[in-house]
C-alpha cells in the first residue's frame, strides 16, 4: 500500500486576521503558522494508523510551498511518514496546488491520496476534487471514516443530514474531516527521527492558475450587543420576535 498525504500551512486558529497594501496582502507579521488542522488531525493521523496496521505501507507527505513551509512539513514528519516532498512553488490558487501534486503523483502508484477537508485560510474544499479529476480516479469528499481492504476502501462520508457508507475501488483521493482519527501530538522519538527523514525538494511543473485574489475585505464590525436584563428573558423573546423578526 502506498499513501500520499497533502499537507498545507495555515495561520494558527487564533491568529489576528489583517490585511495591508490596500487590502491585497495578508499581514503575516507575528502570525504563527501551523499544519492545517484537517491535514494533521485527520488525514495524516489516519494514514499513520493505516501504516501501523500494515507496516509494509509506504507513507509519503507532500506540500506545495516555499522554503518557509519546511518547519511545517518537518513537524508533520515528527508525527509519522517515511519521507516528504516539498514542491518548490508559491501556488496562486488551489488549482495550481493540485496541478503540482498531480504531476508529482502521476505514475508513482499511490493507492490512496489524502487531503484535509479544507484549508482554514482559503476554505476552498477544492484541492482534493481537482486532484482526483486530474488523476482520473474516484473522489470521496468529507470522509469521516476510512478502512482499506486490499484493492478497495470502505468509507463513510458526510451527506446532507447524515452519513453514507461506501465501497470504492482504489486508487482514489479522499478529503478527511472529523471522525477519521483522534489528534496526536508528536513525541520526542518522533521529533528526533523527523530530523533525518528525507525531505526532497522538487521543482514545479509550469504554474497554471485560473483565479487570483483581487482584494480582501474584513466584515463590518458588529453594532454591539443589545443586553437584556437577566430578570426579563421575555423582553429578549419580544425583541427577537418584533425587532429582529427572527422568531
Amino acid at each position: 500500500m502506498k499513501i500520499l498525504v497533502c499537507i498545507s500551512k495555515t495561520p494558527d486558529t487564533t491568529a489576528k486576521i489583517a490585511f495591508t497594501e490596500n487590502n491585497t496582502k495578508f499581514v503575516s507579521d507575528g502570525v504563527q503558522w501551523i499544519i492545517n488542522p484537517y491535514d494533521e488531525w485527520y488525514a495524516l493521523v489516519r494514514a499513520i494508523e493505516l501504516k501501523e496496521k500494515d507496516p509494509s505501507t509506504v507513507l509519503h507527505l507532500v506540500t506545495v510551498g516555499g522554503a518557509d513551509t519546511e518547519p511545517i512539513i518537518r513537524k508533520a514528519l515528527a508525527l509519522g511518514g517515511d519521507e516528504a516532498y516539498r514542491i518548490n512553488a508559491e501556488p496562486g490558487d488551489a488549482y495550481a496546488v493540485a496541478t503540482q501534486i498531480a504531476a508529482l503523483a502521476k505514475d508513482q502508484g499511490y493507492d490512496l491520496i489524502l487531503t484535509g477537508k479544507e484549508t482554514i485560510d482559503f476554505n476552498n474544499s477544492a484541492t482534493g476534487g481537482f486532484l482526483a479529476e486530474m488523476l482520473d480516479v474516484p473522489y470521496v469528499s468529507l470522509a469521516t471514516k476510512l478502512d482499506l481492504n486490499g484493492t478497495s476502501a470502505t468509507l463513510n462520508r458526510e451527506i446532507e443530514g447524515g452519513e453514507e457508507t461506501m465501497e470504492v475501488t482504489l486508487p482514489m483521493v479522499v478529503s478527511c474531516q472529523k471522525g477519521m482519527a483522534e489528534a496526536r501530538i508528536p513525541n520526542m522519538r518522533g521529533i528526533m527521527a523527523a530530523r533525518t527523514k528525507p525531505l526532497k525538494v522538487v521543482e514545479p511543473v509550469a504554474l497554471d492558475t485560473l483565479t487570483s485574489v483581487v482584494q480582501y475585505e474584513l466584515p463590518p464590525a458588529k453594532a454591539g450587543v443589545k443586553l437584556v436584563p437577566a430578570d426579563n428573558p421575555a423582553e429578549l423573546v419580544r425583541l427577537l420576535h418584533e425587532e429582529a423578526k427572527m422568531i
Partner: protein
Amino acid sequence: MSVLVFIDHSEGTVKKNSLEALSYGAALAAKMGTDAAGLVLGTLTEDAASLGKYGIKKVYQVSDAALNVLDAQVYAQVITEAAGKTGAQVLVFSNTTTGKSVAPRVAARMKAGLVSGAVALPDLQNGFVVKKNVFSGKAFAHIAITSAQKVIAVNPNAFSIIAGEGSATVEALGVSVPASKVKVVATNKITGEVPLTEAEKVVSGGRGLKGPEHWGMVEEMAKLLGAATACSRPVADAHWRPHHEHVGQTGFAIAPNLYIAIGISGAIQHLAGVNRSKCIVVINKDPEAPFFKAADYGIVGDAFEVVPKMIEAIKAIR
C-alpha cells in the same frame, strides 16, 4: 454563453439550497444578458417545469437511474458533457456536501476557474470577480476568475430564494453515463431533526450547561422554534452530545439566520464556525465572555434561570 445551475435533489425533491442556487443563477444570467437553465441528474418527483418560477427558462434532465448514486467522477463527466451540449459558460452549484464533492471535479475537467463559498453575485465591471468567505468567516476575498468558463459554488443561506411566475421547458439530454467505481452500502440519515447545515435557526449549548442531563431545555427551545441543535467541541468530545452537532473550526461551519448560544464562552475556534450567522444571541453568566463581542442580543445570567423563562415567553407568542 448561458448559465447552467446544478439542481440537487433528495429522492426526487429539490433541495432548498438548490433553489437558492437557481435564484442566484437566474440573477447572474440577467446581469450577463443571457439565460439561465437548470440541470437535473436522476429523476424528480416534483414537476420540473415549475422550477421556472425561480427565473430559469429551461430544465435539462439526464434521467439515468445510475445517477441516483452520487459518484463525483461520474457526475463530473455527465455535467461537463451537458455543459458542452447546452453552451454553458458559467456553472452554478450550491456549496453543500454535494457541491463540494462535484464542483471541483467539474471545474478541473473543464479547466474552468472555481470560486467555492461565494456569498454574492459576481462583479462584472472589471472582469468576473466573485466575493467569497475566507479565513473561516473572519474575512472575505474578491476572487477574479480568469478562465473563459467559470464555476461558482454559492454558500448555503448566502443568497435568498427569489420566486416569481413562470414555467420552464423540460428537455431530456442524451448524455452517456460511465460506469461507477463507487458502491453505496448504507445511508444513515438522522431523521426527525432539522439537519444542522440546512437549518435557519440553531440553538446551541456549551460546557456551561454542566452535563448532558441539562439538554432538555435546549431541545425544547429548538423544537418550539423549529431549530436544529448544536454544541461546542468539548461538549461533543465529552460525549454529552453527538459529534454531528459539533460546530466551529473543526466541526461544522454554519450560517443560519438565528444562532442562540447557551453557556458557550465564544472561543475564536467556536466563532469560526458560527460567525456568519445573521443574528447571534448569547446567554452566559460571565459578562466578560468573548461571545458577547460577536453577539447581537444577549443576557448576562444563569442559563438555568433564563432559558426556562425564554421558553415560556416563546410559547406565549406562538
